[in-house]
């Protein structure tokens, strides 16, 4: 945690699948691509996951620099503190999104000394040519982070794309408004294309975009087809691994590599199921990771669960796709329109089901469905103090789940995505132990 001290490398997490084991090198390669981009004459952009623009950025041959990914890497390497401190020194409150704080602290430092900060994780995060932020109802930092970064890089242009999600309401149905949501998102995406054309000096190749989007669609299908194999007993892959496979899923959408990755994963899981290979030898409990981003510095906690015979066949976190054929998208020729519909349909995927169950919300409905599809014994969530986006409403969701479904054992772990000061291993594992005991007595 101190600047002069070398970061203490975390213990390696055991992965269950070869696919997951490959991810470290893949993600490292992404960083080096970004670092090489300039000398290769490629344009780079700071980008967020889950912004609907992956295929557009790929088609424009822009090298994305996934700032959440870099912050996560700093966290996983337990080397985020010095960047968080830099952010604090800039009068940024430590209660803000720590991904953003880590990134801003890093940017401020890099711009101040005119080069990468000493021992920057995996070579560091280069200054981009542009920043693509996004206005969504789920996350303020997505529109504030890059705007704040301009304080250190005033010459780097930002495009903030409006990506609304239709609220789940009682007073009207989402179908009634889907039309104008799509129209808006289409205009925003077209605006993005114009922006990218302006700053790359290149024109959008619309035919290529259609191909890339089609590749993306097929990847969406493949991801879920692979993930749904985890319903098998014993479960061949847990959430611990899914926190690796989220890399191709969220950072590489629209690339052949991502598609192949999940094809391989699919085949690997098939093999494991054939030989009854589970994540744990003696599978006692099947758990659902029901909410919250993981504590990147403590992924070994998943191994701790496994040591108790508990495995996570499913998670809601980072499962940001559904098979295209389940979304009943309208047939449209324009790839931009298709992206907009895909966004709207995906984000409202659980609405109709939720309507049928009194007291349910889409989030709760999703939990109930996963509990049944993956025959789950208990639900685990993680409350990361610095992130309101994904970590508010968890308590309520669990209360509601018990109220309208059944009194299933639940556990909320508390720490943060990357601020290790919020983490206490002794306490965390004591909670896990107690939870395992609870599962045991409930099972009896």
């Amino acid at each position, binding site marked *: 945690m101190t600047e002069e001290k070398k970061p203490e490398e975390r213990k390696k997490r055991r992965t269950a699948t070869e696919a997951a084991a490959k991810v470290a090198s893949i993600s490292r390669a992404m960083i080096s691509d970004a670092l090489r981009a300039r000398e290769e004459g490629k344009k780079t952009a700071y980008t967020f996951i889950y912004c609907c623009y992956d295929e557009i950025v790929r088609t424009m041959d822009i090298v994305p620099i996934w700032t959440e990914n870099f912050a996560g890497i700093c966290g996983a390497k337990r080397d985020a503190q010095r960047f968080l401190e830099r952010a604090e020194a800039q009068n940024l409150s430590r209660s803000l999104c720590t991904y953003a704080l880590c990134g801003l602290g890093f940017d401020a430092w890099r711009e101040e000394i005119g080069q990468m900060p000493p021992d920057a994780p995996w070579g560091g995060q280069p200054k981009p040519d542009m920043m693509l932020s996004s206005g969504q109802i789920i996350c303020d*930092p997505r529109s504030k982070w890059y705007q*704040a970064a301009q304080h250190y890089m005033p010459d780097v242009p930002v495009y903030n794309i*409006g990506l609304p999600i239709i609220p789940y*309401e009682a007073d*009207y149905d989402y179908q009634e408004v889907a039309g104008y949501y799509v129209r808006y998102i289409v205009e925003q995406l077209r605006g993005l294309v114009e922006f990218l054309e302006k700053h790359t000096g290149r024109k959008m190749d619309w035919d290529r975009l259609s191909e890339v989007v089609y590749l993306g669609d097929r990847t969406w299908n493949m991801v879920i087809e692979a993930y749904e194999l985890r319903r098998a007993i014993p479960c061949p892959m847990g959430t611990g691994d899914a926190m690796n496979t989220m890399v191709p899923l969220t950072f590489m959408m629209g690339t052949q590599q991502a598609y192949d990755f999940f094809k391989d994963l699919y085949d690997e899981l098939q093999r494991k199921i054939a030989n009854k290979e589970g994540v744990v030898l003696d599978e006692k409990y099947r758990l659902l990771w029901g909410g919250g981003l993981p504590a990147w510095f403590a992924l070994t906690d998943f191994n701790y669960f496994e040591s108790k015979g508990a495995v996570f066949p499913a998670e809601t976190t980072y499962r940001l796709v559904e098979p295209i054929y389940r979304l009943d998208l309208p047939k449209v020729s324009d790839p931009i329109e298709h992206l907009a519909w895909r966004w709207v349909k995906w984000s409202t995927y659980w609405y109709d089901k939720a309507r049928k169950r009194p007291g349910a919300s889409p989030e709760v409905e999703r939990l109930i469905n996963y509990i049944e599809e993956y025959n789950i014994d208990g639900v685990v969530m993680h409350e990361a103090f*610095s992130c309101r986006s994904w970590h508010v*409403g968890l308590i309520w969701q669990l209360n509601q789940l018990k109220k309208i479904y059944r009194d299933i054992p639940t556990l909320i772990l508390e720490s943060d995505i990357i601020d290790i000061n919020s983490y206490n291993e002794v306490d965390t594992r004591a909670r896990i132990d107690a939870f395992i005991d609870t599962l045991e007595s409930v099972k009896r």
Partner: protein
Amino acid sequence: MSKEATGGLATAEKYYQDYGARVRELKRQGKKIIGYLCAYVPLEIITAAGFMPFRIKGNVNEPITKADTQMETIVCPLVRSCFDLSLKGDYDFLNGLVIPHACDSICRTYDIWKYTLGLPYSHIINMPHGTDDSSLKFFKELLNTFRKSLGKFAGEEISDDSLAQTVKAYNDNRAKVRELLELRRLEPPQISGTEITKALVAAMSIPVEESISLLNSIIGEVKQKTGVPTKKSARIMVVGAQVDDAAFIKLIEDTGAWIVVDDLCPGTREYWSDVDVTDDPIDGLAERYLRKIKCGRTYREQKGTYAEYLEDRFGHIGQFVKDFRVDGVILYIYKYCDPFGFEVPTLKSYLQSLETPALYLEDQYSMPTIARLRTRIQAFLEMLG
């Protein structure tokens, strides 16, 4: 009504202390009450539908207890306090709840509010972050959806005429508030920040026409006040999110400073801009709420140079500093507030460029945490000399 007799400031004090008193009366008379959070809910639409809009506020003196059973403590303490009071029955008169897409702390807790309070009506105005033309067009669609939905709840559609009337009424109200706030340009300011906060909070809790007459009587009262010559004090501007409790303002003034202007809700942010009268009233409303209100929650696109961009985002603050001869600015930011928290470094350096000293304070919206700020505020004033 009895309140004219007791004088404006006294009435404001009454409604501030017993927040919602007037609304309870109206409720008994059969009025339906729509609670709302934040400055982004177009009250014109709620009032035009025949409902009484009521701003849900927090209370720094009430420890947050019940809220924690449903709501994570990583939520903005103001929102937690509002929810806590609602759970404790302070706002048991509400018939509905309307929240705007203001910030994560408000939006991510919408389900909790909706299902826990179980109100007959609830709606979220999913306003975009952007202010470009397509965002504006989208926002109009949203407002029409809201207008339709609220009309359904009211049992009859909201007519353009009634909207036109409420637009005028709220513009008049804003004009009155500006007249009141202007009284602080003077040396010494004719009305204290504490009195202003209480007046504006009271105004949030009564019908707009009553608000106008309340403000009128306050202005009259203050102007007559043969101003007791106060010794020269530092002229302070407070910038922050929603400050709906006078405690912090009073703390500053008790240390012997004058609060002469603010960029707060309720305050200039909420009252400085009007709704243009347009053929389709929704056009004027959309323009005002999306583009004219300047708040960290909105993403204003950069046009021109970065310096011009800063002017576009913070120019109004610079203007206030000049017009109200501000000696120092206090940035009062709540813990867990992403929209305002991320602006601190930029805003601080913007103020530096104006050679205006700034004090950045982070608070948790509770009396004890506020009290702990006293030393910092005094030191800041000692520093200003």
